[in-house]
């Protein structure tokens, strides 16, 4: 345990540190002696240099996902990209219909966008995933109607890390000429994405989950066959009118650079992360009453979402003082409700309250993992000694048969 540097960061799905190589590149586009110009300034060298950098970054982003650079629209992040995609496509296609299909385990940036469209008179179907977190393709097909215009399904889930079959969903949507949007905020640099193959029409991305800066993202908008969306932010007509606003050169350069690195290092990084994730899980496997949330096979390498039954997640995190993780426990959310993602899996609420999400990443070490195992096991043991539910479990009482005084 000697060479562990605390606090340990195991919350890479929340955000990632910007890679030093990325930060160094970004610094070349800010100060007076650098290419700080407005990329839209076509009359002088300051603008030209910035424009070259933006073009280069556009190519780098396109390269990671095998797209054309002209299909990349810069946004402030994945939230804005999701808004632009879903609202933009829904509004553009109102003559065909006003029905949208998404799933209950989407990020709030999708769910809340859909809620807004409902307020505007659109109808939204929220699909229930299977117990493993994956969408049942038959359930999806059954939800599609003649007036369905947009299907929005995320690639990788931010809480449980499961990977949806976007290839199959794409085929289903294309056959019915329905616009297919994918929130890929959690998958760039973690899963190979080939948009020449995938029948995805719109795809949201951001830099800060892929070792780039916060506050920059992009929407892929397919050219062939051409997908049209209505702009949500109006102004100077940047990004072919789809998203106005002066381009943030340094942010864009950062996103390009982190995507370039991701393309180069994804394969080796995934091998290493899988080894670490398996090591972490192995460290808990022999404990009683632990459950992995979400499919363990169709899952990104760095994610372990696990419930320690009879122990409440927030108190568990309180014991893990020098390890940064997150929990689906109600106490950690403003709403005082346990994770809607875990509930959508049909997990009972207790298991949602008892969940911890470990997400490992580029700077996680074997020593970090071993330390996390040791600390977590000790904390679970301590809290189970304090837990009346653990006593009841050991006395053979079925907690589902107890009449609780819910408050």
């Amino acid at each position, binding site marked *: 345990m000697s060479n562990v540097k605390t606090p340990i960061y195991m919350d890479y799905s929340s955000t990632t540190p910007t890679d030093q190589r990325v930060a160094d590149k970004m610094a070349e586009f800010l100060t007076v002696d650098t290419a700080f110009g407005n990329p839209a300034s076509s009359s002088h060298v300051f603008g030209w240099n910035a424009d070259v950098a933006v073009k280069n970054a556009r190519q780098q982003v396109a390269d990671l996902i095998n797209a054309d650079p002209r299909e990349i629209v810069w946004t402030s992040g994945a939230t804005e990209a999701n808004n632009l995609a879903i609202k933009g496509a829904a509004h553009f296609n109102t003559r065909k219909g006003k029905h949208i299909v998404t799933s209950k385990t989407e990020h709030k940036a999708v769910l809340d966008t859909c809620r807004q469209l409902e307020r505007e008179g659109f109808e939204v179907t929220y699909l229930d995933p299977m117990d493993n977190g994956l969408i049942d393709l038959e359930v999806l097909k059954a939800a599609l109607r003649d007036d369905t215009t947009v299907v929005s399904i995320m690639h990788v889930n931010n809480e449980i890390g499961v990977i949806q079959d976007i290839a199959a969903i794409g085929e289903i949507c294309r056959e019915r000429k329905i616009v297919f949007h994918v929130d890929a905020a959690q998958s760039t640099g973690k899963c190979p994405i080939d948009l020449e193959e995938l029948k995805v029409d719109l795809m949201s991305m951001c830099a800060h989950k892929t070792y780039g800066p916060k506050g920059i993202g992009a929407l892929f908008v397919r050219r062939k066959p051409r997908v049209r969306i209505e702009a949500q932010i109006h102004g100077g007509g940047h990004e072919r009118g789809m998203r106005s606003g002066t381009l943030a050169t340094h942010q864009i350069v950062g996103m390009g650079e982190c995507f370039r690195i991701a393309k180069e290092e994804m394969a080796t990084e995934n091998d290493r992360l899988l080894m670490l994730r398996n090591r972490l899980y192995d460290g808990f496997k022999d404990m009683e009453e632990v459950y992995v949330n979400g499919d363990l096979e169709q899952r990104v390498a760095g994610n372990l979402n696990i419930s320690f039954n*009879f*122990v*409440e997640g*927030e*108190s568990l995190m*309180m014991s893990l003082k020098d390890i940064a993780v997150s929990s689906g*426990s*109600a*106490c*950690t959310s*403003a709403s*005082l409700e*346990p994770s809607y993602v875990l509930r959508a899996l049909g997990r*009972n*609420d*207790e298991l949602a*309250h008892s969940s911890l999400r470990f997400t490992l990443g580029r700077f996680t070490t074997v020593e970090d993992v071993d330390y996390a195992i040791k600390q977590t096991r000790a904390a679970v043991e301590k809290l189970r*000694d*304090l*837990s*009346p*539910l*653990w*006593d009841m479990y050991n006395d053979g009482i079925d*907690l589902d048969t107890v009449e*609780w*005084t*819910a*408050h």
Partner: protein
Amino acid sequence: MAYSEKVIDHYENPRNVGAMDKDAQEVGTGMVGAPACGDVMKLQIKVGDDGIIEDAKFKTYGCGSAIASSSLLTEWVKGKSLDEVQEIKNTDIAEELELPPVKVHCSVLAEDAIKAAIADYQSKQ
């Protein structure tokens, strides 16, 4: 969320953790909350012939504030009469532990637990 030092102290060194024989006549048990809500408190008191609480024990499933609320309450009730204990309000607990508004329900649960324990004891007499 930042916790007060008192919550951290009770969380790290919980007082009076344990269980007593719930069938004993001098023991009153109160269990409140629900696993689905994320907190369950079990509070037990042992009452002497003189009507004074001789001992108190707790077990709690819940967040740090819930654990601290029940731990604190077991300290407070020992040596008090049942009437005196009835006077303890959730706001006293919340104030002592400096609970933020979102955690006040933990102190409410603790008050419910002691009231339930007293009622259980009285029903046995």
